[in-house]
């Protein structure tokens, strides 16, 4: 049994969806954990869900970063255990410096809420290992600040260490500015840390886990994590 903690911050709104999606997998126990918790012992994996923690005040994720639970998330990550940040969770991981770079206002200033295609760029991670390289996944995004930014040195490091796991692509599986929903640098949709145990992505795989929601392509992310355990 793999135990997942889904952290609930004030303003999280994809927390229940994450628990719902996780519980559809065999061998998973998932529970909501309030952000005041400072102990994550007993959990194998932590999910920081989407939403608008603290109303996105100052910057998205800037205040959630100082929630008591984030110290525990840091220790969990430093112990090599699995951490996944989805959308606002990705923003929180960047603000916490658990992932490099930052997420800024979308190129077109609009909130984008649509299906995207993301290409799996590397299988060398606990989050993509049972997918196939170059495979396009249909997973929705819903964000106003999802434009990934990093300075040139950081981008070079991300590429050199194979940390870019997902990129936005068009229907042909090619990189294309029109298929990049937010103007992200290098079409980046998801990255992992150097140790490959912390993953942040803007698309919502928990919203693509059952056919009646339009796609089951998000399942491969969770299946990868489970197969890694």
């Amino acid at each position, binding site marked *: 049994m793999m135990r997942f903690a889904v952290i609930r911050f004030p303003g999280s709104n994809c927390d229940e969806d994450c628990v719902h999606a996780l519980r559809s997998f065999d061998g998973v126990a998932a529970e909501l954990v309030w952000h005041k918790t400072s102990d994550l012992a007993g959990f194998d994996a932590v999910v920081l869900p989407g939403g608008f923690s603290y109303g996105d005040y100052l910057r998205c994720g*800037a205040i959630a970063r100082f929630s008591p639970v984030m110290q525990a998330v840091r220790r969990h990550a430093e112990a090599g255990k699995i951490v996944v940040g989805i959308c606002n969770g990705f923003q929180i991981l960047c603000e916490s410096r658990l992932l490099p770079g*930052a997420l800024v206002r979308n190129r077109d*200033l609009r909130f984008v809420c649509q299906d995207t295609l993301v290409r799996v760029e590397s299988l060398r991670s606990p989050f993509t290992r049972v997918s196939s390289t170059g495979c396009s996944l249909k997973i929705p995004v819903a964000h106003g600040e999802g434009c990934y930014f*990093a300075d040139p040195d950081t981008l070079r490091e991300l590429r050199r260490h194979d940390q870019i796991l997902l990129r936005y692509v068009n229907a042909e599986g090619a990189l294309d500015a029109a298929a990049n929903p937010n103007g992200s640098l290098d079409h980046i949709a998801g990255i992992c840390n150097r140790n490959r145990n912390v993953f942040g992505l803007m698309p919502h795989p928990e919203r693509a886990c059952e056919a009646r929601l339009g796609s089951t392509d998000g399942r491969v992310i969770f299946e990868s994590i489970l197969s890694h355990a």
Partner: protein
Amino acid sequence: MVRAMKVNVIVMPKPAVLDPQGVAAAEAMRHLGFNDAKSVRVGRCIEIETDGHDEEKLREICSELLSNPVIEDYRIEVSGEH
């Protein structure tokens, strides 16, 4: 001695960061007949009223919370000291 003062922390996007708000504001300014702007950047200002402050602590707060050094620069302006 307590000295009332106002500390303004001005946070601006780094030059290398795309600032779509600035671009949109510049476009609207042109529509309104202001054609002289070479560049428009949008940041934010945090006004703090305080009775004195620890400079080092303030800088820490600026770089840890009020700004994100990955994408933003900040400057501190102290006024209203009396």
